[in-house]
């Protein structure tokens, strides 16, 4: 990849991102033309755009970027392009953590403000995903690298444990709690508020800055843990930083938007094809790509069967699952 074709790719990605953003503003259950957006303001369309659509689009952009970034980080940590947080059980762990907090929060009868409740749920999701990443990493990765089958199997096991615990919680819940938990589990971006948007953009910014500073260390880590250590990388510190970023990103995105799968697999895969595996270019490309993918998927999910909506996770899974199968099929190319 030479400098010029990389510059063209950046330009192209930015253009697509802006196009997605404006399409998302225009299309929905009610279509709003560009003229209405900017010049002919009427009350209804202003309310739709500013109160409903814009926060939702911004949430889609930031969680998409966050999930793609976490995917790239996880693939760097496991040194394997198949390590997607939703496949290795991290999202399931986050979901269990959040359900536990919701369950005990509601049954304890404390009346907490909306923001505090949200912070607690996020903390639960964060804790759940930290435990899941550490567990999968401990079992699947050794001196000789990551065993892909073990990684995926541990992911299945973690998802199964998290799933059964969540069902157990539902069994013990009363109707009101059950409704709260299941509504939240279905997830989606429709509950977006500017408060949510602020949180996810702040986290996206912090995670990106941290990872970008570590990008040459992440590159060195791809040589293997020992080789990275020989090059002078503090591997333990680096792994800790990556795990915290993944857990925070996946945890918050699960708390904000529920389970959205495969974004962390699809986006880094295509960005690696365009930009190459160097994290210095891959990470920013994943931020743009993730934002593009999730905002486009969300626009589709709002318009395909309007005025009803499809869950956005369904669309990403529809795109991601076949790619996953294709990658498994070609795994010899990646020496897995």
């Amino acid at each position, binding site marked *: 990849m030479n400098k010029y074709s990389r510059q063209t790719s950046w330009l192209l990605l930015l253009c697509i991102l802006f196009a997605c953003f404006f399409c998302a503003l225009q299309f929905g259950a009610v279509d709003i033309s560009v003229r209405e957006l900017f010049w002919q303001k009427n009350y209804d369309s202003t309310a739709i755009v500013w109160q409903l659509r814009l926060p939702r689009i911004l949430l889609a952009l930031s969680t998409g970027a966050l999930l793609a970034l976490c995917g790239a980080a996880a693939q760097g940590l496991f040194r394997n392009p198949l390590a997607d947080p939703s496949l290795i059980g991290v999202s399931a762990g986050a979901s269990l953590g959040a359900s536990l907090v919701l369950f005990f929060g509601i049954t304890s009868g404390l009346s907490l403000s909306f923001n505090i409740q949200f912070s607690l749920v996020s903390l639960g999701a964060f804790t759940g995903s930290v435990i899941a990443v550490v567990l999968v990493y401990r079992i699947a990765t050794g001196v000789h*690298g990551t065993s892909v089958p073990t990684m995926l199997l541990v992911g299945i096991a973690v998802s199964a444990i998290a799933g059964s615990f969540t069902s157990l919680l539902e069994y013990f819940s009363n109707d009101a709690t059950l409704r709260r938990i299941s509504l939240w589990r279905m997830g989606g971006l429709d509950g977006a508020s500017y408060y949510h948007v602020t949180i996810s953009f702040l986290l996206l910014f912090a995670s990106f800055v941290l990872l970008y500073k570590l990008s040459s260390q992440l590159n060195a880590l791809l040589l293997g843990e020992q080789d990275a250590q020989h090059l002078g990388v503090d591997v333990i510190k680096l792994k800790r930083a990556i795990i915290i970023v993944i857990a925070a990103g996946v945890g918050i995105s699960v708390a904000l938007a529920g389970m959205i799968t495969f974004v962390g697999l699809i986006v880094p895969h295509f960005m690696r094809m365009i930009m190459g595996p160097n994290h210095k270019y891959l990470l920013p490309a994943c931020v743009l790509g993730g934002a593009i993918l999730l905002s486009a998927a969300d626009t589709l999910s709002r318009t395909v069967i309007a005025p009803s909506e499809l869950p956005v996770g369904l669309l990403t899974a529809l795109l991601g699952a076949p790619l996953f199968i294709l990658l498994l099929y070609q795994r010899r190319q990646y020496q897995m």
Partner: protein
Amino acid sequence: MSLVVNNISVNLGKRQILKDVQFALATGESLAIIGPNGAGKSTLLNAISGMLQPERGNIKFENNLISSLSTGERARKIAVLSQQHQLNFPFRVRDVIQLGRFPHITTKHSDNVVINELIGILQLHKLENKPYTQLSGGEKQRVQVARVLAQIWHVEETTSSLLLMDEPFNSLDLNFQQLALNIFARLKGVNTNVVCVVHDINIALRNFPKILALKDGQQIFFKAPGCLTQDELQKTFSTSFDIIHHPKDGMPLVIL
């Protein structure tokens, strides 16, 4: 003495892997470590590189304890070629070599000078822009050797450093084995000690001034190849073989 390994014992968990290993190398002197599988050769390399802490004894390089160097200092002085390479992302060959420059805070220009020189020496011109994942085993080995050399390569000043290699001749054909040996000779000129685990005993006997033999974690001998007896070699590998002498210089060669 430049590299001094002072009576070290290394444990992994509760198992003792190395017991009372002791040797010293003069500046620029290179060493081949030989021995049967599982003798502790790679563990010895790991201990010298500072990756493993010896239970007893200590290791000094140029009068500094290896354990007292910071991670960064160590990375600028000691480069290690591992036995197995895990990289499976499609970096270009040039970018893989670039990774070896990680510990150095130098300008992009001086990095490029080093990288270009190594690409020239290891004859990687044609592969320079190819993805690493598409290379053959021997080509990958050459690229990794170039990366490890980039870590301790200096274009002008001569700073002594330490190069540790676990079976560097693996999957290299004769031409590149010779090339690697030429590079070692050149490193000797800049006071760099090369320590290699070598599987092919004849390569070790012919090209290294000192041989260290390990068996079950114990040191069998540490000698110059010219002083070796057939008994010592047979004891190391618990098998019998013949020794003949090279027609040109009379140095020993092993024939099974």
